[in-house]
């Protein structure tokens, strides 16, 4: 199986570096994006298999980034996992599903949890794609 490409968007530079390292150690190819505004153009260019998206960032919120990604053909299929220290999952179910965000992790999460979630979302995505190809 080819190496999966994960794009991580977060405005906290140190966290971004550490998370990138965690994911690389787990065998993913990682593109770290420190500016919310750059998320969409970079996603269009590199077409990642999955995006880890911080929700509260300077200049542009994660919801705005998600909205943009879900509105364009070549990025709309990319699954998104949100990360934030601001909200709790129970509160944001509606918002998350509205922006078609697949899953959620509240900071400070256990790094093992994010890998479990990434794998789960990728597996689900593969299942949907296979189904589509067969159908």
């Amino acid at each position, binding site marked *: 199986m080819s190496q999966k490409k994960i794009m991580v968007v977060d405005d*906290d530079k*140190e966290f971004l570096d550490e998370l990138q390292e965690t994911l690389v150690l787990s065998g993913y190819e990682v593109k770290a994006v420190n500016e919310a505004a750059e998320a969409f153009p970079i996603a269009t260019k590199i077409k990642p298999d999955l995006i880890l998206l911080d929700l509260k960032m300077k200049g542009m919120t994660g919801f705005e980034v998600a909205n943009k990604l879900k509105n364009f053909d070549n990025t709309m299929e990319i699954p998104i996992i949100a990360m934030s*220290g601001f909200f709790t999952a129970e509160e944001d179910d509606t918002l998350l599903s509205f922006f078609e965000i697949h899953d959620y992790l509240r900071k*400070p999460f256990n790094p093992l949890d994010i890998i479990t979630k990434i794998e789960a979302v990728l597996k689900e995505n593969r299942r949907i794609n296979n189904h589509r190809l067969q159908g």
Partner: protein
Amino acid sequence: MSKKIKRLRNFNAQLRSVNEKLKTEILHRQEAEDNLKAAYHRLSDIIEFLPDATFVIDKDKKVIAWNKAIEEMTGVKKEEMIGKGDYAYSVPFYGKLRPLLLDLLTVPQEEIEAQYSYVKREKDGLYAEVFVPRIYGGKGAFVWAKAAPLFDNYGQIMGVVESIRDITDRKEAEAILRQDKESFEAMNKIKTEQLLLVQKELTDAKHLSEIGSLAATVAHELRNPLAAIRTAAYNIGKKSRNSCLVSHLNNIEKKVIECDQTINNLLSYSRVKVSRFEEVKIHAILKECITSAQDRYYKWKVRVIKKCNCAKSDNIYADPFQMRELFNNLLNNAFESFPEKKGKLVIQVDGLGNPDSIVISFIDNGMGINPNDLEKLSHPFFTTKSKGTGLGLTICRQLVNLHEGSMNFKSEIGRGTEVKVTLPRERKLK
């Protein structure tokens, strides 16, 4: 002869003079009698048209006056009453023969008081207030009565007059006023209590809103660096593969989780809570919370005993997230009550014999709570621990209140604490 005639003439003159005098006297008397009659008629007229119901008895206690107003009040005509004695005048008032106020002028005060709700003696007569059942066609009325003696020229009592005034309207107004006053006072008391409560809530809310906005900002600002620290520790562990580092990295991890818990408490305290009620398996949630508490305190030697006095399938209507928060907080407190990190914790669920509610008790044999601290337990920021926000039990109290339940503490220093949470099974509709 002439002498005789002279005497006769003289006598005749005297007789004429006496006759004249008598005539004048008779005229005077007639005049006086007319005057007296006129006066009597005037007096009768005055009595007759007095606005207050009035009647007069003579010294033999026979009715000699019965005016229009009393005819209206009693429905008994003057003709039927004039000349009647033997307390006949009391029948239209009470339906039986009995003395009225005017019969009591000479009776001692105590005897009168037994018959009238209010009585006052003044030098010109007696005043009283009483309910009279038979007047106004049996409707009855509250009356104010005055009885006064009538004297003749020689100062002898020749009769008694009694005036009666209907004061039902005034009485009713008084009753309404009294009732109004009472209900006003009661309402005032309730309002004052409500006001105090609202004031307290406002103070708390002000406190909360300040904490709320601060907490939300701080939460985000702290969770981001905590996330970086936790991930960094994980990466160090992965890259170094050095077993000497493991315990240090575990400590970092543990402290990050502690910080996160503090942030959660602050947030949960300040967040405006709305419960989402659903049917929950309260046993399952409790069991899950106990397991995770045992994981959190895995190094502690605490024997946890679970007792269940009800069916495992006993479900209640509650918010599952809030129930978890409640149990987690109470379990943390129970574990923290063991200064030696060892002890016994009994968790008991009682549901048998009570169709309306379920009782969950957390009984530890830890250090106990100082009696002075017991009432402060639910106050925000009250804590006896060196670390902790002092919000745990405040949150518990809020959560239990949201579920319309109750939470009680029993504690003895050195012996332990029992926390009893009572939760209704069904959601009461408001």
